[in-house]
């Protein structure tokens, strides 16, 4: 059950600088996954790392979107059609089902696990507003995909880049006030750098908004048993990776402040 299932890579798309989207099929994952859940991706002989699922298609097709930040992700980004990876999962607790009016906020590859949620909303004609933040046009994934999705109703999709090379210049959090004042959201979903999430958390706490965020910690077992991924008394792999605002309340002193490395040592963020 918790054994990697080896899958052939069907297609690799360049998503942005150093970011690739990798397509493959895995029936077990695709038949069970809830947006926000993650899988463990095995690169034989090298590593096994947690990855959000950035697309769920027909015929068990899935995709992950990987940013090359180290050895394993670099290797993943270098794989070609026909190469193999192993996957196990899906694991963890995903996002709640969307409400009537939804806001989705992604920072960089943090948008990955939010993509299937957007796909779901669009498919089911549920109102969804998307904010995507990145460093620059070249470095921000999903811009084209989201533009294609949102072209018919452009007002719902906004991008910020730090250098202003696309969309508004600045941070995605800069747009919060405007969008939230104009709308009433049943759900706000966010994933991205933890400092961004912390900001969003503070904002939503103040305004009492129904936030859910997906967090990252060092994942080893992925099945809630090894104690590698604690954030407070929550295991990110089993109790998360998605946490609701009431849960975030309990770990607000850790959020954006502390993480743990592979040995369990506390590391300042």
């Amino acid at each position, binding site marked *: *059950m*918790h*054994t*990697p299932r*080896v899958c052939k890579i069907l297609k690799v798309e360049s998503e942005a600088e150093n970011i690739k989207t990798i397509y493959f099929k895995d029936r077990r994952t695709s038949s069970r996954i809830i947006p926000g859940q993650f899988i*463990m991706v*095995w690169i*034989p*002989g*090298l*590593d*096994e*790392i947690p990855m959000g699922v950035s697309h769920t298609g027909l015929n068990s097709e899935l995709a992950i979107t990987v940013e090359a930040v180290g050895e394993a992700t670099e290797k993943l980004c270098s794989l070609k059609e026909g190469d*193999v990876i*192993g996957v196990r999962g899906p694991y963890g607790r995903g996002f709640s089902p969307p409400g009537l009016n939804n806001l989705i906020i992604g920072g960089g590859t943090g948008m990955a696990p939010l993509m299937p949620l957007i796909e779901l909303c669009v498919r089911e004609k549920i109102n969804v507003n998307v904010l995507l933040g990145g460093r620059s046009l070249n470095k921000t994934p999903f811009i084209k995909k989201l533009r294609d999705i949102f072209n018919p109703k452009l007002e719902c999709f906004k991008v910020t880049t730090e250098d202003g090379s696309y969309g508004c210049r600045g941070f995605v959090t800069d747009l919060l006030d405007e969008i939230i004042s104009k709308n009433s959201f049943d759900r706000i979903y966010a994933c991205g750098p933890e400092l961004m999430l912390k900001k969003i958390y503070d904002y939503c706490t103040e305004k009492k908004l129904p936030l859910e965020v997906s967090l990252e910690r060092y994942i*080893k*077992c*992925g*099945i*809630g*048993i*090894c*104690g*590698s991924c*604690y954030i*407070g*008394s929550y*295991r990110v792999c089993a109790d998360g990776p998605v946490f609701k605002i009431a849960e975030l309340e309990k770990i607000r002193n850790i959020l954006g402040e502390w993480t*743990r*490395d*592979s*040995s*369990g*040592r*506390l590391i300042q963020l």
Partner: protein
Amino acid sequence: MNFLETALGSIKLDNPLIIASGVLGTTAEGIKLLYEKGAGAVVTKTTTLSSKPGYANPTVVSTPSGLLNSMGLPNPGIEEMSREVASACCEGVPVIGSVAGSSISEFIEVAKRFEDVGVIGVELNISCPHERVGLIGQDCRLTYQVVKSVKDSVKIPVIVKLTPNVTNIVEIALEAVKAGADALTAINTVKGMVIDVNTGYPILSNKFGGLSGPAIKPIAVRCVYEIYASEVKVPIIGVGGISNWRDALEFLMAGACAVQIGTSLMKGYQVIEKIKKGLTGYMKKNKLKKLNQIIGISHKRC
């Protein structure tokens, strides 16, 4: 009336269900939660003097009715771990510090640091099948030396965790007791391996790992039974594949005074209360008052 009280020598426990080392007992908040969820005590992740990152992933993989792991004893080192443990001990959680090291002095140092922060005992991990420390528990002389040295250096009870990966577990158990062990934990995981037939790669980055879960229960019960039947007279903590109250009872009947659970926590924390409830129900139904009445009774049934 508490039907489940038990004692490991001078250690008194409210209930016999202890959380096994390496399974979620890695941080203060994790340890506290496990206690809140009903554990009688919590063993920490095995701790060494300096921090260890553990092996690269994959570190776990499923097997038929079991789990194979080779975490590689990742831990933040005793400096940081003792802070976590201190916080739990302060709040009254009965914590057992799991100790390992690459030298006798490291074992002693880690054990003493645990003692300083108020653990109820230390458990010497000389039995990890995928670690060098595992070699200690496969050798009578090394076992004696390590146990004796730690025993001479701390006042709290010293529990020794044994490996099934030996020709004769009783021999090692006797050696540990001769060196002063106050209790024995049996068993650590069984050395195993899984190969992915699609690629030919051993799945674990470390190739070999330790098998846990229901698959090893018959091996663990056998070990507890063998030790209890021997001249060893210290309390035994049974561990290996316990996932319900009947499993726990099997170990008690084989001679364990307490049990540990690890892999079955995969199914959620509620397994702790479920096992306690099942055991209490069994005690009531059979009009038993104390666990002593069932501990080791299999040895009288022949």
